[in-house]
């Protein structure tokens, strides 16, 4: 039987852990709120931008290399979004698993698949597996800003425009709610514009363009792409905090259960000790009487 002191030490250390996980949960909750705020703030901008691109594309009949789909895709660049820190449940492992599976499934059909890793977790994991990414972007510890996303997007667009890749895909955790995230794989480039969104707008056909529509649309497409990267990053951050919040909640609950169990064992052991002592005293007294 474990002795009383040992049990008490275990209870204390579990209590400490519980305090930490509780604090982490609160921090994640605050950060999650901020990240969600980011996503909602961006929405009007994204909707307007996408709408105007669709409008110009439809009314002016312009096309652009960024919008044209390649007939047979030979090379793919996979951008894998993970987090810098762990302790967030299955957040990173599900992304990594997806990326590995994608690689295994498509290796045969494509000439090359390259990776860009965003976040320390992903790049570390693949470095251990000897898969070298073209680039690793880490130090996401601060909040994701539009500038950071802009930098990443610029690099991607250059790689696409010089023809090294036919498709750029992004793997990240989509933010469904605080407790559920979904791994999604999106084609970032070429951009797909649905002409259907043209309906129901008051887009005048005799619109004045300055500069020419072809130039404007290139600019807008690039900005839209930046925005897509920013959105995906924000979603990923929100998911990370959501996942961590859930993981920490579970950890706190487990710690509570464990403390209850240990307290019960502790009380039992204490009671047993008292009973033994009592029996000893009583039997001692009995023997003296005799």
């Amino acid at each position, binding site marked *: 039987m474990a002795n009383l002191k040992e049990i008490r030490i275990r209870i204390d250390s579990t209590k400490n852990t519980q305090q930490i996980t509780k604090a982490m949960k609160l921090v994640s909750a605050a950060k999650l709120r901020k990240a969600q705020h980011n996503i909602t*703030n961006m929405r009007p*901008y*994204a909707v*307007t931008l996408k709408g105007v691109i669709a409008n110009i594309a439809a009314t002016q009949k312009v096309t652009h290399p960024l919008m044209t789909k390649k007939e047979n895709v030979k090379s793919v660049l996979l951008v894998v979004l993970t987090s810098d820190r762990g302790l967030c449940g299955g957040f990173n492992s599900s992304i990594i698993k997806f990326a590995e599976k994608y690689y295994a499934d498509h290796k045969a059909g494509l000439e090359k698949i390259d990776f860009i890793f965003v976040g320390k977790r992903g790049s570390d994991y693949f470095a251990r597996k000897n898969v070298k990414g073209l680039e690793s972007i880490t130090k996401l510890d601060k909040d994701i800003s*539009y500038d950071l996303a802009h930098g990443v997007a610029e690099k991607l667009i250059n790689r696409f425009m010089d023809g090294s890749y036919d498709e750029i895909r992004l793997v990240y955790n989509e933010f469904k709610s605080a407790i559920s995230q979904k791994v999604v794989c999106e084609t970032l480039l070429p951009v797909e514009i649905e002409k259907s969104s043209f309906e129901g707008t008051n887009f*005048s056909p005799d619109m004045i*363009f300055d*500069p020419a529509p072809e130039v404007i649309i290139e600019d807008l497409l690039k*900005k839209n792409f930046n925005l897509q990267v920013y959105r995906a990053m924000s979603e990923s951050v929100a998911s990370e905090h959501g996942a961590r919040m859930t993981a920490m909640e579970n950890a706190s609950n487990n710690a509570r259960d464990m403390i209850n169990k240990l307290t019960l064992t502790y009380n039992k052991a204490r009671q047993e000790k008292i009973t033994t002592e009592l029996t000893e005293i009583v039997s001692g007294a009995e023997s003296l009487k005799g």
Partner: protein
Amino acid sequence: MFKLNVLTPERKAVFDQEITKVTVPAHSGEMTILPGHSPLITTLGTGILKYKIKGQEKTYKAVISWGYCEVSPETVNVLAEFMQTPEEVVEETAKNHLQNAEKKLITEVLNDADYVATMNEADKARAAINLVKH
């Protein structure tokens, strides 16, 4: 009814604000838009956005950088990547940015993308300094 919306990826800066006049740093120079303007789409450079709210004398100003502007007779939609109001500008920081950018332009050999980015950085800082001066 003549309304202005200014949106950036990080916030909704001006929304459904009734105005009498707005000036934007358009592709081919500064452009003032009055109510009833014919439909127009233009890209915006780095510069100062000015607008007058209906019924107020004060001209509101802000630095904006890259954006596009869609004008219809009743509304002006401005989408900008970056926006800073006079209250947010710290003159010291802006001056430092300008100095760094200018130094970089003179001393370093830059590729096209970096050159454009640095120029933009310098323009932004210049506009911010102008904004707080006047």
